[in-house]
């Protein structure tokens, strides 16, 4: 797949060749290749809603490769406050830069932006829909520890109903036929259509309400935040959240080789004590956002072929 000039909007547009290309490129960047390859290139970050990791890691990625960054975070001081449409904003900004990274609270905003922009657009999250570079960095992190993604036994724990991160990663892994376990309370279980799609792609998908229901040793436990606002009854929330909290004891039960991942931010679904274990990959995972986003920027700008 030739990435030059292409927008990166959804995991559904990406095939295994493209995933492999991104992983390989990120690895080479981490080893020191392609330094300065984005010199004289300009990135515009259009963050219509707040972000910590995604925005800062995109900006770092661009600067580490020698490029420059303009942009906004929050719409308070932009023409959006005057009622400017997304279409007009994107057409205008596309004339100021070589590549756009967009985060927007409305689903489909990034796709629309890519259709009207004269420069490549990278989706950094459109509402509850897609956040492809998060999936790429999850993939890259997995690839660092497991050479064959088809062999990784991965469990997803927590809010599997609303979590776009889990949906995208599980879908992407199904392209490699990775065996998966979905561990969630009934209220927050994986949407049936997605589980069906994952199985159709060739993965085995097991569903259970608790970790005890996982009858095999997992290689990876991918934990997500359970959001309070999904529950009408706070007592029910406390009960559920308590059952899905990862502690040192849980890690010990799962086996000392299990890797713990999390897209962050976390609240208290992973106890702080777990941070000190070698099993904890989540900060390493967040730091991998840099080489992965460098790879994506370098590829879509044609600086890395």
């Amino acid at each position, binding site marked *: 797949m030739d990435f030059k000039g292409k927008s990166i909007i*959804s995991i*559904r547009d990406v095939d295994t060749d493209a995933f492999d290309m991104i992983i390989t490129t990120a690895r080479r960047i981490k080893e020191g290749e392609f330094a300065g390859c984005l010199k004289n290139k300009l990135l515009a970050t259009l963050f219509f809603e707040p972000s910590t990791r995604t925005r800062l890691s995109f900006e770092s990625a661009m600067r580490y490769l020698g490029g420059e960054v303009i942009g906004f975070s929050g719409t308070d001081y932009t023409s959006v406050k005057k009622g400017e*449409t*997304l*279409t007009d904003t994107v057409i205008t900004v596309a004339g100021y830069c070589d590549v756009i990274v967009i985060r927007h*609270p*409305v*689903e*489909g*905003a990034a*796709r*629309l932006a890519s259709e009207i922009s004269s420069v490549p657009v990278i989706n950094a999250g*459109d*509402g*509850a*829909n*897609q956040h492809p570079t998060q999936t790429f960095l999850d993939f890259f992190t997995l690839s660092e520890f497991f050479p064959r993604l088809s062999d990784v036994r991965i469990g997803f724990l927590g809010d599997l109903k609303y979590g776009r991160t889990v949906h995208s990663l599980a879908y992407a892994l199904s392209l490699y036929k990775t065996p998966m376990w979905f561990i969630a309370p009934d209220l927050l279980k994986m949407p049936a*259509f997605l589980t069906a799609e994952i199985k159709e792609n060739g993965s085995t998908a097991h569903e259970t309400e608790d970790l005890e229901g996982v009858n095999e040793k997992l290689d990876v436990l991918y934990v997500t935040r359970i959001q309070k606002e999904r529950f009408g009854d706070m007592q029910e929330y406390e009960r559920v959240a308590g059952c899905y909290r990862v502690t040192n004891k849980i890690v010990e039960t799962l086996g000392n080789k299990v890797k713990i991942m999390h897209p962050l931010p976390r609240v208290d679904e992973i106890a702080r004590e777990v941070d000190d274990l070698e099993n904890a990959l989540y900060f390493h995972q967040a730091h991998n956002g840099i080489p992965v986003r460098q790879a994506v920027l370098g590829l879509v700008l044609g600086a890395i072929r």
Partner: protein
Amino acid sequence: MKTYKVYAINDGTVIDHIPNTKALKVIDILGLENKGILTIGIGFSSQKMGKKDIIKIENKFLKKEETDKISLIAPNATINIIKNGKLTEKRKIEPPAEYINVIRCSNPNCITAKENIMTKFKIVKTSPLILRCHYCERLISSGEIEIL
């Protein structure tokens, strides 16, 4: 001699085998209201369907890409093109690869509900029908489809 409840047209398009009571919706989807002479038959007896509707559109030869738009509500309709009183073309409805500006996205937080753009849906499965919004990627099943 066969008697017709709806008189024959000399030039135009006849849409037959529309599910009963859906004729007015078909006219709506095809944008035919106030666009010329229409003859509408509702609740005719049909061997295949029990009851059916039929529409005759005078002096208009609808193209395949136009009539395929009604595949959501009249998948088994037949299209007859009449020229100089003779049947010159008979065809079935086929689902298009994409429904462009035919369906409203059921997701209130979809960009199509916020910006003035055309909706676009791709077919994921035909039986049962499942569509995916090109923008927000939400899936909708046949029971949730709202025609624009």
